[in-house]
């Protein structure tokens, strides 16, 4: 009688170059660390260093937009829903947000005049975080 054995082979370990571990897949963090000399990356990271607020999140959106060629070009990337970007812009600029760190204190932008729903700050942070993670990977 012959016994049949099933072998499961597991290969594990960490690739290294000259003893320095090499991440299997680059993360936004890895790209960011490598691209500190990229003026756009530096500006975005400087803006994200402080506590996220409407001013900083909108400025991050501004920098990323500028780096990819404008609002339409950013929307076309599909990193985050275009509606989320519009809601972020509306809420950051709306007079109703003025007392909680919004960018403007005049009625030029108003939630009341828009059909879009406002974006809570926590959700705005999630949108910006997701956008920046995708954007960083393109700066490698």
């Amino acid at each position, binding site marked *: 009688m012959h016994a049949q054995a099933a072998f499961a082979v597991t290969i594990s370990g*960490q690739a290294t170059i000259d003893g*320095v*571990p*090499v*991440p299997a897949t680059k*993360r*936004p*963090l*890895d790209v*960011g*660390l490598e691209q*500190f000399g990229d003026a756009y990356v*530096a500006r*975005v*990271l*400087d*803006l*994200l*260093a402080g*506590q*996220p607020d409407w001013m900083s999140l909108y400025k991050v959106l501004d920098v990323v937009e500028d780096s990819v060629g404008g609002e339409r070009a950013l929307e076309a990337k599909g990193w985050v829903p275009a509606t989320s970007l519009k809601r972020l812009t509306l809420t950051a600029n709306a007079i109703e947000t003025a007392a909680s760190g919004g960018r403007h204190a005049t009625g030029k932008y108003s939630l009341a005049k828009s059909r879009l729903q406002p974006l809570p700050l926590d959700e705005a*942070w999630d949108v910006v*975080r997701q956008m*920046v*993670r995708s954007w*960083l990977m393109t700066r490698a």
Partner: protein
Amino acid sequence: MSRRLVRVEGAPRDIAAAKGALNSGEVQIVEVGDENYLEAPGITSAPDAAAAREFAEILFRRLTGLLRVEVGLRDP
């Protein structure tokens, strides 16, 4: 070249998350005794202590931004 380290302070949870995120690169948070320190080639290779400090301030700022994005820290 002597090793230069910059002390890191913060919530233990955030420092643990930062250590985990930085565990495979040249920029690392290392434990010396009971303290945590940032170690990076740019800090060690700076020509003097003032330049090391200047580099460390920039690195800290940008690293904080990166860690917010990478691990979702809100209060590092």
